């Protein structure tokens, strides 16, 4: 039986975490379908993903903003054709998929980090301090995917047909009012090759801008620890950690971050970790490949210059 992946749109294409979800789906079954809510261009992009055999596109005002109630109703309408329903563990996937699971009387398994079989998956618990292998007794499986654990499916290579979604009932219990999405030239945090993150030691929202020069030179996304978000130095969507985003870039530079367990949960799969901190006992050094002890306000300008 085929598996269905709910896509997260990213402008005219699908997000990188969606491609990771497609990669996870391909490990379960060779017949992978993708559901795109709104966005004809994104549906065309999904059709080109390697491993995708069919794209279903849902048009209509109820789907344009990814509201959970109509999206879940549509997924439930499609569910009889699929053994597994997946979505990336993005804000959208996490919002919609548990609703789908409950409507199907299924216990969802969120943020899977590995596929061990059609009914067995691995996921982190306790802020990444333990790795659980769980097996589900539910006939149908509903999953979200931890993008950092799966290499994204290539954006080219497929040539799937795009078809229109069947109509499903819109519960019409909520409506979209508006969004404030930061316009940034920088790569998306969960898709960036390099991430530069600041912690509480940055000291203020103004000082946080010191990271920008370095991020510009490295083509990096900017992240933040929960402490920095709590202190109001950085917006919440920059948060890396258990309760924020999980990233696994080639290079992660932690500046003035002590390395609380819940922060490590969001970045310890990075390929290379650099820590800059004035406290040489900071736990972040225990996971860092390269540590530099010193005053970040001296180091950051120097680093920016050194990167030329």
């Amino acid at each position, binding site marked *: 039986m085929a598996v269905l992946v709910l896509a*997260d749109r990213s402008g005219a294409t699908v997000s990188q975490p969606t491609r990771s979800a497609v990669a996870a789906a391909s490990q379960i079954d060779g017949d992978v379908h993708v559901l795109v809510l709104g966005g004809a261009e994104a549906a065309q992009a999904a059709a080109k993903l390697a491993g995708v055999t069919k794209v279903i596109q849902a048009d209509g005002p109820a789907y344009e903003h990814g509201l*959970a*109630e109509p999206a*879940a109703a549509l997924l439930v309408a499609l569910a009889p054709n699929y053994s597994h329903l997946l979505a990336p563990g993005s*804000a*959208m996937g996490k*919002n*919609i*998929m*548990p*609703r789908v*699971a*409950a*409507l199907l009387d299924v*216990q*969802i398994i*969120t943020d899977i980090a590995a596929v061990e079989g059609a009914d*067995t998956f691995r996921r982190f*618990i*306790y802020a*990444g*301090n333990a*790795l*659980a*292998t*769980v097996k*589900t*007794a539910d006939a149908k499986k509903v999953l979200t995917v931890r993008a950092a654990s799966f290499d994204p499916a290539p954006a080219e290579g497929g040539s799937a047909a795009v078809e229109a979604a069947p109509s499903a009932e819109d*519960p019409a*219990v*909520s*409506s*979209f*009012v*508006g*969004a*404030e*999405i*930061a316009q940034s030239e920088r790569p*998306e945090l969960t898709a960036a090759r390099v991430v530069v993150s600041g912690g509480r030691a940055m000291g203020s929202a103004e000082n946080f801008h010191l990271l920008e020069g370095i991020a510009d030179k490295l083509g990096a996304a900017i992240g933040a620890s929960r402490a920095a*978000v709590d202190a109001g130095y950085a917006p*919440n*969507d920059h948060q890396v950690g*258990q*309760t924020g985003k999980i990233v696994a870039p080639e*290079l992660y530079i932690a500046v003035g971050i002590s390395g609380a367990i819940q922060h490590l949960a969001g970045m*310890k799969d990075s*390929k290379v*970790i*650099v820590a800059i901190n004035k406290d*040489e006992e900071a736990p972040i*050094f225990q*996971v*860092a*490949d*390269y*540590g*530099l*002890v010193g005053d970040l306000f001296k180091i950051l300008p120097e680093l920016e210059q050194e*990167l030329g």
Partner: protein
Amino acid sequence: MKLLVPVKRVVDYNVKVRVKADGTGVETANVKMSMNPFDEIAVEEAVRLKEKGTVTEIVAVTIGPAQAQEQLRTALAMGADRAILVEAEGAEPLGVAKVLKALVEREQPQLVILGKQAIDDDMNATGQMLAALLGWSQGTYASKVELSADGAKVTREVDGGLETVQLKLPAIVTTDLRLNEPRYASLPNIMKARKKPLETLKAADLGVDLTPRLTVVKVEEPPKRQAGVKVGSVSELVSKLKTEAKVI
């Protein structure tokens, strides 16, 4: 308007959990337990809505062991009016949502506010599942909640920024970090909370089947990263990143 606030007893966020040697789970004996931090935010939001006058009664509920009374007393000390404990061990989010649905049908609240995720299983599912079972609207990851007689305007934390949705009541709201900063209960309020009503039920009393759907095959320590080297200068760092790690 009546409000229901579900809370969960979890291992305190400051505790470094250890995986049990036999691989069946993590060590929870003799470990400090607390209210899930996101649920504290939910209790605080409920109390603030009551202080504004839109809410008349707050019922705190939990599904857990008998000791979860402690977390209900905390909620009562923060300002909840009464509490219900449904005794059950190890319920999964779907089972918890079914118990909550039964309580909602009994209590008839217009709004349920709960944490977006519990910091033990990190599942992030109960609120959405409850909304599904009730057929209610959902406003997850809330950073702002504006309640009126017929609706709730919820600002949500989403990838890249914020989104605002208008929910018809009754509705489910799940809390994110920036919604508020929970208060500490004062000593007089802690004393008063001891006298507030706390009812104890069993899941079977509510006619809910909590048979788990998931079997934990094993729990293990995640692969550990080895600490690397300390470098002496910025230029040494940059040179190592270029020539050794080859990432820039």
